[in-house]
């Protein structure tokens, strides 16, 4: 089993005729993902890799019975594309786009809370259930099917940790990059809930980073609700306060929550084994299983 995506996920790719959209649609199909449609206004009737393109997401969802959307739409139009996906509706939206204006995301988030849809991202690598389906831009070849659930705010750090796991034969049930933007849809807690409920996820890796309070909140959730063992990693221990490190999210405000120290303490208090290196995280997972 797995969470959010599997063999039955029927994907519509928004922006499938653009450079990135087309490339990664191809990669997803190659991985075995069930890409059933594309959606691009004005391109209805075309085909990309034999996949029919529709003018609207609702049209694609209706005609091809799609239940998930992956969004490769440029930032200026991505907010609208997300509203369109929520309206279609689909059960899962994966927003790869980086650089969506924060106020646009704030409005999308407001709408999201009125729906039952899961939004992963934006500014994320997507998610993958190894051997079944990949929605996004993750490099499929480093993943292997197994029982470790993985959730991370950072893309390439995810790959790093997965690499350390796969190397040791520790396969993944589902790996989810939730994105590093200030406002994201599915957060750590949403994902941890899903992993906790999944009988085939026997251990969880959670990769956080400095900024915000998501890790602290997740720690609270883990302490109160999780039986599945969790290993953690927090990037940004050496980041100086007040400096923005890449993502908007990765900024430390100087005191209190948001620092690596605060997050590591909160997680360790919740029983999470926090690794000093990605490799150490794999050590803990090996011990758990």
């Amino acid at each position, binding site marked *: 089993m797995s969470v959010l995506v599997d063999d039955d996920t029927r994907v519509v790719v928004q922006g499938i005729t653009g450079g990135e959209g087309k490339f990664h649609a191809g990669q997803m199909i190659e991985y075995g993902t069930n890409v059933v449609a594309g959606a691009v206004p004005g391109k209805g009737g075309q085909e990309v890799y034999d996949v029919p393109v529709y003018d609207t997401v609702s049209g694609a969802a209706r005609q091809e019975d799609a239940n998930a959307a992956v969004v490769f739409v440029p930032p200026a139009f991505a907010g609208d594309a997300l509203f369109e996906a929520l309206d279609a509706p689909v059960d899962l939206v994966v927003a790869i786009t980086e650089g969506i204006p924060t106020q646009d995301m704030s409005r999308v988030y407001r709408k999201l809370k009125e729906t039952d849809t899961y939004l992963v991202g934006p500014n994320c690598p997507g998610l993958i259930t190894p051997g079944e389906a990949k929605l996004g831009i993750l490099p499929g070849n*480093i993943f292997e099917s197994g029982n470790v659930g993985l959730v991370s705010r950072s893309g390439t750090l995810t790959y790093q940790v997965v690499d350390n796991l796969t190397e040791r034969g520790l396969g993944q049930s589902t790996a989810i990059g939730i994105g590093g933007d200030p406002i994201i849809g599915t957060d750590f807690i949403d994902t941890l809930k899903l992993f906790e409920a999944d009988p085939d996820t026997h251990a969880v890796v959670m990769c956080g980073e400095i900024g*915000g309070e998501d890790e602290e909140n997740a720690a609270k959730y883990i302490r109160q609700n999780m039986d599945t063992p969790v290993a953690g990693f927090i990037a940004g221990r050496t980041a100086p306060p007040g400096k923005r490190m890449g993502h908007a999210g990765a900024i430390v405000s100087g005191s209190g929550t948001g620092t690596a120290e605060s997050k590591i303490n909160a997680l360790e208090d919740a029983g999470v084994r926090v690794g000093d290196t990605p490799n150490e995280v794999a050590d803990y997972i090996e011990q758990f299983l």
Partner: protein
Amino acid sequence: MRLHEYQAKDLFADAGIPTPDSTLARTVDEAVDAAAEIGYPVAIKAQVHVGGRGKAGGIKLVDDGEEAREAADEILGMDLKGFEVDRVLVEEAVDFVNELYVGVTMDRGEGKPVAMVSTRGGVNIEEVAEEDPDAIAREHIDPAFGMHDFQARKVVYEAGVDGDIARDVSSILSTLYDLWEERDGSDAEINPLMVTSDGEVIAADAVFNVDEDALFRQPDLAEMEEDAAGDELEAKANEYGFDYVRLSGNVGIIGNGAGLVMTTLDLVDYYGGEPANFLDIGGGAKAQRVANALDMVFSDENVDAVVFNIFGGITRGDEVANGINNALEQFDEIPKPVIVRLAGTNAKEGMEILNTDLVQVEATLEDAVQGAVEAAEEVTQ
């Protein structure tokens, strides 16, 4: 992106928020003329993005032409926490009886805007927030509806603003919110919002930070002149479009993806080294971008060794390898030892392409970081 005080005040004034009479000056003569035009007393205020300008000597109140000349002369060209002052705002001095704080920002945790009002304006509001959080009234705004008028009134009354001026302050807050929304603000603040003895309220300072991701639809704001960055290298990074932060160590770090780069920094520290910088080349970098990154890190005199850590997703190992080769082949002698680790998409191809005469190749993150820390130590010794 942070606007200068004078730019933010122009925005505020255009939207109908009362601001003091003021003129921008780039020379001492301009400043003295402007002061005479406005009428003494005036404040002469350095236009740089530095907190605590006043304490650092960047703001002076002057009563006549002589004082104005002296102050302008002192402030223009001064170094304020690493920023050279090349502009001052000459501004009517406001005689106030009270100072308020009014601000709008995005509450990231809640995913919605929040409006804030405090009667403890004129001081560092972050300090107030920490010492006495209740001194700041907050009202979350539903981004679907925008700010309702009643919300502006509610937060103003809850902050304890005097009834006589509550209506004016609410109206300024409403305007500030609308401006924040229309112009894609990340933060909009008036601190202090001065209250005069005859009950007028006036924005004596103005902060407006724009969401950089929204600059495409705010072309006039995108064009506004920013400070010359205090750090030459950071200015260069800006030009190249890198996320770059200069630090104090001697191990240069290049990687793709903020989380992975931060992790590389953390590992340098973990293995006893000191990171010299954070440099994220982003996703899908081509060879030229890779060369630019190396150029940047080489330009930092503090750097003694470089670790180049790439885990390819969209980024392709062969592109990176070519970029590294091209950049290094231009040198007769490699300026600093470079330790490279490639993983992920086309990593194998990349490893094969890399010229091992020019770089040291390592298979794991740990080995690469340790290699760089050791190389840096060797140079230091």
